[in-house]
């Protein structure tokens, strides 16, 4: 028989946990849900747009009633649980319904804090929490009542006031302090906000304490401590929320401010878990959804008995969902004696941005008027990125950084037919439609349903912005992204485990790290295989079936299923003999296209798969080896003619290029790796858009790193200047090795350097002589196992022969 899971609280956190659980263990439990509200579950944060008339209740439903039936979940909607009998493991609702549980999940949310003042129970005095509250507000406005008072100038209060004003009421916001939204804003931003809202017609009474609510059969006025009275037909209490723990407390479950849970979201009763705003974790209670998503993931994992994942607390960020006001804040935005503030104020544009920085790391951010970079600052904050390399320009935003290409203006200003994802031709309208119709919450879901940002990924930032603007301030990205759907772990965690636990096979990784799929997927397997062979070159076996077809057959697959073959031409040099051999091969195997590549060598296109070993054999015979044009590996080393011929050449760029290629060919890297050597600053070999580039000068060699052409062009950073070829070789090997050891799979050197910072790379390669030599030594060591020509192995028929022959040919 299935185990029985009962959920109390049909809200955002509880149902998210159930959804996560259904994803990973769909058949484990018979699930029963109790909810005091008579609805399916809905996106509570969208109540503000509903009140403002920008959305309807139907549009904010996450799961409607038929959904529960389809999933086989028993839902008691409109049924409030009043008792938990822990001895009998039974919950009892006010209407007499009972349910027995093996596991119980509490997700009772919060209740609005109602000020303890006379008149607080009069009709017309409400909180702002659920659909019923919104309906009361809408009814009051429609009944033609004019005056509304909102108590509390926080996020909720302002959204309520804005909505009521949109519904035609005259609305006054009463605030005890003199800074609006003081939990999210510093005084300067708060003043800007107040000015804007006043211009729209809201009234504010700051520094006022409410003394009583007056009225006979319904509210009529509000009186303040100083004696002032203002008329009011509706009072919305938005002075804070309290975790809803009445039921838990009555049932003897340990509570402090909230229901106390450990890192697995378990309460003091091991059968009972709790998630959402009702819990207190490590002394913290939360009032935003992002932390709840993380809790839901971890809790579902433990309910499924997988037993991995812990919730370690969250940093949160907020946005105000009042149309036309861009406001963002995160972290510690007030700062203290040991922090710096970087501030940009442009009153004419109505823009204010402030970053609080401590030892070159972002601690907090407040932005008003221009919030495009909120997500970026938040990422810098969560990842603790060292910003010293771009501190001067950080306030100008991500678009201002070397890796431009991000849209600088708000995506919501773009028209519906604006193309967002160039690779898959997905327009903004399609994405917005998928998000609202299919109720998508995460970038991964948008990717799966629309293909936007599923290919090169350069539009991910835009997709995130569209998501945020469409569903409100969702930020479901965990601190570090999981590698893929097969695991909870990030690239860095997996890699660390491979190194520290000495894992040398995929099986060991899957077992030790509790992979969710039996043998991974097309996304994690190639990455894991790379991590294994780059960490343990002498021990780990290359797993052939975990390589993309190109790396399996050492040629590039083409759109018609034929292959292309690119032999190495060291430093772009070739000979009459090599050219003759290429011509002969093209004739002999009727290869339709012969092309000079963008990488200074020759491509034979349209080779039939079964001809590959013979083509290679012939090329090998003329002394040529694989060019790895197909690999996450060293590609080409482009050179110019240099001092040997060119009248401007300062050094032997061609010769140095050949030496570099001979040293590095065959090495596997996280992504492809390209080099170039130019003989003088005219830079004919385009060395400054390569992963490693050398520009020769009279006094020696300028070494450049982290460039690429391609999707997002990025010019290199100058690493240092060197005087001998031998030094260049050593720095090159060391640089490749640190990238091999620390770059994430499919992360090219350009994004890698932006992530870790140029200063970091300099500290490891330029400033640490011993460290550099050690890296170089490790590189040379791993090359011992890597420099085997894959073509020769296969041309001889000794390796992977089955790959090139059909299994059978039938008449």
């Amino acid at each position: 028989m299935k185990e029985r899971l009962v959920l109390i609280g049909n809200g955002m956190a509880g149902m998210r946990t159930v959804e996560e659980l259904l994803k990973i263990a769909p058949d484990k439990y018979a699930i029963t849900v109790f909810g005091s509200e008579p609805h399916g579950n809905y996106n509570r944060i969208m109540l503000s747009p509903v009140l403002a008339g920008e959305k309807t209740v139907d549009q904010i439903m996450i799961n409607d009633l038929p959904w529960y039936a389809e999933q086989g979940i028993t839902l008691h909607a409109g049924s409030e649980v009043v008792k938990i009998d822990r001895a009998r493991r039974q919950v009892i609702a006010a209407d007499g319904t009972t349910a027995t549980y093996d596991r119980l999940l509490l997700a009772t949310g919060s209740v609005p804090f109602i000020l303890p003042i006379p008149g607080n129970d009069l009709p017309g005095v409400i909180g702002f929490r659920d659909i019923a509250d919104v309906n009361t507000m809408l009814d009051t406005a429609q009944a033609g009542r004019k005056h509304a008072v909102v108590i509390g100038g926080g996020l909720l209060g302002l959204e309520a006031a804005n909505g009521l004003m949109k519904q035609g009421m005259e609305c006054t916001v009463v605030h005890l302090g003199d800074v609006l939204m003081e939990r999210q804003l510093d005084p300067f931003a708060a003043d800007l906000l107040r000015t804007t809202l006043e211009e729209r017609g809201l009234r504010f009474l700051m520094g006022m304490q409410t003394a009583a609510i007056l009225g006979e059969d319904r509210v009529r006025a509000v009186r303040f401590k100083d004696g002032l009275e203002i008329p009011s037909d509706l009072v919305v209490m938005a002075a804070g929320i309290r975790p809803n723990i009445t039921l838990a407390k009555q049932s003897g479950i340990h509570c402090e401010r909230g229901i106390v849970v450990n890192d697995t979201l378990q309460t003091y009763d091991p059968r009972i878990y709790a998630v959402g705003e009702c819990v207190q974790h490590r002394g913290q209670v939360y009032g935003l959804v992002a932390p709840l998503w993380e809790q839901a993931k971890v809790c579902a994992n433990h309910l499924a008995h997988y037993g991995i994942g812990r919730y370690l607390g969250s940093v949160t960020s907020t946005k105000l969902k009042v149309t036309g006001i861009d406001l963002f804040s995160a972290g510690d935005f007030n700062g203290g004696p040991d922090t710096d503030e970087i501030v940009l104020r442009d009153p004419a544009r109505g823009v204010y941005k402030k970053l609080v920085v401590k030892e070159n790391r972002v601690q907090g951010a407040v932005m008003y008027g221009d919030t495009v970079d909120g997500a970026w600052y938040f990422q810098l904050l969560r990842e603790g990125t060292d910003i010293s390399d771009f501190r001067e320009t950080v306030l100008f935003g991500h678009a201002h950084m070397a890796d431009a290409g991000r849209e600088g203006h708000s995506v919501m200003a773009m028209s519906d037919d604006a193309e967002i994802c160039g690779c898959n031709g997905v327009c903004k309208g399609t994405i917005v439609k998928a998000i609202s119709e299919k109720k998508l919450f995460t970038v991964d879901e948008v990717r799966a349903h629309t293909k936007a940002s599923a290919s090169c990924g350069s539009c991910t930032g835009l997709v995130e912005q569209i998501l945020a603007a469409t569903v409100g301030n969702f930020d479901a990205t965990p601190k570090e992204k999981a590698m893929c759907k097969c695991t909870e772990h990030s690239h860095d965690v997996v890699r660390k485990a491979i190194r520290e636990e000495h894992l040398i096979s995929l099986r060991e990784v899957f077992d030790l790290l509790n992979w969710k799929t039996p043998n991974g997927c097309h996304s994690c397997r190639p990455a894991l295989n790379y991590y294994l062979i780059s960490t343990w070159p002498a021990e780990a076996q290359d797993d052939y079936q975990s390589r993309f077809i190109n790396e399996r057959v050492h040629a590039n697959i083409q759109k018609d299923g034929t292959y292309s073959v690119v032999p190495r031409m060291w430093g772009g040099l070739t000979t009459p003999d090599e050219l003759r051999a290429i011509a002969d091969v093209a004739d002999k195997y009727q290869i339709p296209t012969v092309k000079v590549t963008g990488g200074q060598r020759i491509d034979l296109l349209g080779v039939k798969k079964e001809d590959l070993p013979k083509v290679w054999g012939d090329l090998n015979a003329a002394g040529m080896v694989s060019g790895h044009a197909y690999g996450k590996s060293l590609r080409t080393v482009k050179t110019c003619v240099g001092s040997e011929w060119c009248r401007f050449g300062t050094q032997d760029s061609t010769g140095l290029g050949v030496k570099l290629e001979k040293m590095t060919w065959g090495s596997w890297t996280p992504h492809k790796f390209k080099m170039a050597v130019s003989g003088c600053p005219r830079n004919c070999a385009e060395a400054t858009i390569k992963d490693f580039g050398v520009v020769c000068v009279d006094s020696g060699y300028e070494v450049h790193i982290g460039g690429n052409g391609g999707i997002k062009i990025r010019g290199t950073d100058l690493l240092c200047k060197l005087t001998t070829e031998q030094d260049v070789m050593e720095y090159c090997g060391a640089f490749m090795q640190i990238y091999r050891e620390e770059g994430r799979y499919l992360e090219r050197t350009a994004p890698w350097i932006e992530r870790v910072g140029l200063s970091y790379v300099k500290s490891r390669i330029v400033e640490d002589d011993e460290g550099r030599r050690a890296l170089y030594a490790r590189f040379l060591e791993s090359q011992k196992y890597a420099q085997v020509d894959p073509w020769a192995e296969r041309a001889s028929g000794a390796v992977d022969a089955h790959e090139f022959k059909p299994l059978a040919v039938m008449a």
Partner: protein
Amino acid sequence: MNDWHDVGCLDDIPPLGARVVRSAQGDIAVFRTADNDVFALRDRCPHKGGPLSQGIVHGQRVTCPLHGWVLELASGNAVAPDIGCAKRFPVKLIGDRVLLQVGAASAGGEEQHGAAA
């Protein structure tokens, strides 16, 4: 035409891999999973004709090498959100011999897929 053809032995196909059988109906990809289940699909991706035999096999699925569609080996159906289906062929194991039925190709999921271990 509906005979079972012996196309080779299980070990001729690498685990988590595939081989191609040439037939009058065109190329057929014969897959082998980690659990030694075998499946056969027409070697043409429903998207743009990519050779499925060259893809990465994981679980009971294959990822097309050209643009990364994922197909269920048992049914030939593309995994959501993509929509399409590769024709599947009955295939079974007798001992370690792989037997393939080519005449009776079917596109839907109505027939048993014939996987045996």
